[in-house]
């Protein structure tokens, strides 16, 4: 069984995201520990990419800052290795296809397995193109996380049937970022997913407040938050981990309800 399953064994899951190396890798390590200590069920680690086409301005900014600090894929693997000495919460990468492709998909998945990464989210890798990455991922026991969008319609069943780990349900059209309102009828999407698979699904894109997290988790198995955490890093810099810890605790309490 996938290690990711454990993330959904403590009631509704809260899944925070952080871009590795924003503003530096030491801060990322401290923030990840703060997330784990305050109830994060699964942690998404972003490997920065120069041109993150699925991200809104907030996470774009985090990618740029991290790359300016010379963060590389190898340094991120080293960070994971270090974190795994004391952090047991399931962790997945979120990055772009070219980061993995350039590293070599086989070598990348092998390093994931060696360092303790459980899965990977690639927003520019749709169902039709996943084989090239899912074959090596399977070899090393890494889950490729599938995304389902408000526009997926007749594609939901097909994607859900082959999904691994958990399903990332995209709450809204557009890119990542804080939204005041989420209008998509997610219960209908989740219903079709549940008819086709028993793996959990969590909702992301646009969530920032405890109320939003609570209502998103109510129709699914968990809530994913990225931009709101990056905002804390923007605001507090190196002292952000403490604020991130408080935020994660508040959000976890909200999703459990």
């Amino acid at each position, binding site marked *: 069984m996938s290690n990711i399953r454990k993330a959904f064994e403590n009631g509704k899951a809260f899944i925070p995201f952080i871009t590795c190396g924003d503003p530096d890798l030491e801060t990322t390590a401290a923030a990840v520990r703060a997330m784990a200590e305050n109830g994060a069920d699964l942690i998404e680690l972003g490997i920065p*990419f*120069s*041109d993150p*086409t*699925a991200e*809104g*301005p907030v996470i*774009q900014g985090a990618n740029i800052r991290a*790359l300016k600090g010379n963060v*590389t*894929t*190898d340094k991120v693997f080293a960070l994971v290795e270090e974190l795994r000495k004391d952090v047991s919460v399931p962790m997945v990468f979120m990055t*772009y*296809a*070219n*980061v*993995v*492709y*350039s*590293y070599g998909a086989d070598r990348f998945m092998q390093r994931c397995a060696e360092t303790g990464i459980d899965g990977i989210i690639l*927003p*520019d*890798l*749709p*169902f*039709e*193109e996943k*084989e*090239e990455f899912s074959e090596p991922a399977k070899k090393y026991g890494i889950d490729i996380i*599938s*995304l*389902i*969008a*408000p*526009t*997926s*319609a*007749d*594609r939901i069943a097909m*994607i859900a049937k082959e999904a691994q780990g958990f399903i990332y349900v*995209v709450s809204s*059209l*557009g*890119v990542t970022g804080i939204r005041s309102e989420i209008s998509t009828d997610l219960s209908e999407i989740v219903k079709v997913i549940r008819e086709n698979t028993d793996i959990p699904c969590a909702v992301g894109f646009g969530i920032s407040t405890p109320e939003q997290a609570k209502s998103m988790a109510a129709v699914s198995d968990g809530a994913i938050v990225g931009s709101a955490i990056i905002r804390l890093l923007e605001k507090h810099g190196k002292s952000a981990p403490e604020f991130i810890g408080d935020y994660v605790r508040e959000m976890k309490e909200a999703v459990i309800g």
Partner: protein
Amino acid sequence: MTNSKGRFGVHGGQYIPETLMNAVIELEKAYEHYKNDTEFNKELTALLNEYAGRPSLLYYADKMTKDLGGAKIYLKREDLNHTGSHKINNVLGQALLAKKMGKTRLIAETGAGQHGVATATAAALLNMECVVFMGEEDTKRQALNVYRMKLLGAQVVPVTSGTATLKDAVSEAMREWTSRIDDTHYCLGSVMGPHPFPTIVRDFQAVISRESRAQILEAEGRLPDAVIACVGGGSNAIGSFYHYIPDKDVRLIGCEAAGRGIDTFETAATVNTGRLGIFHGMKSYFCQDEYGQIAPVYSISAGLDYPGIGPEHAHLHDIGRAEYVPVTDDEAVNAFEYLSRTEGIIPAIESAHAVAYAMKLAPTMDKDKIIVITISGRGDKDCAAIARYRGEEIYE
């Protein structure tokens, strides 16, 4: 890759967010239907001929031929099209297709502004809303085109992310498309991005070689020895090459923007300096670092200032059917001035890259050989920038 569509050898595919998948599937279905639809083709031909001014001339450059003293040189005059470049060929096709699909809004990226102007023009003609994304750096380099787009009723959005050039304009247009799909068609300007764009754009630009092949047979009774075009994403080049691909004796030469040289970091010569990667919806060659971070490329030409190349070009390179050669800023500026002086034709700085390579190649060929150069656009938009390059400040 069992499910993957739109491959040219290993290149191409559809590396895009799930949010866009049904949109590109819908586009592919619509295109497959309309490309063989008599009524659609009749309307498109009427627009191309009566509005855009096709067919474009194949002009024998007598003075240039004599001056260089080698192969006979013909210029395929895409600069004479309405809006001043080859971009209109693709835009009229896509705008008409979008209209048939019930879309009311066109979005586009632009580098030099030629594709943006063409899209704004088609939108005005077909009563559609239009939003053009343009790197902030390019809005400065090509201020005249920004004004033209606004005049045509389009909204121009300056893009400040990344290097604030063409690559970032494409990223921003893609982001915009994921947020508004129902009424919006992304009118992509080059033979790049996810399937079906490289095929659709190629088919609409193939009119260039369909005409030039017939025109050269008419003028010379035989095919040319070389066809030369500039390559950024590669739309005018693929259009110029397409109908010659089966004619193995015709050399197909794409001229990449080498910027300050392929041995410097200030270059945009993708085939010559890049490697295989996945970006902007496609697998192809990209300028990138060892970790796959896309390189901040450079060229004097905003239209060629792109870190990738269309997947069909990457494939033509792999199989050795086409050659891709680097041309520097300096060579292109010299050619820009040379063609202006010699033939009284001011080419776009993009097209000047093709002229520059022809200037090197022609003298090495016999006088009975023939070269066709595609002049993809006119150079009015570049005059201020070239003047600056030569140290002269002019006010538009």
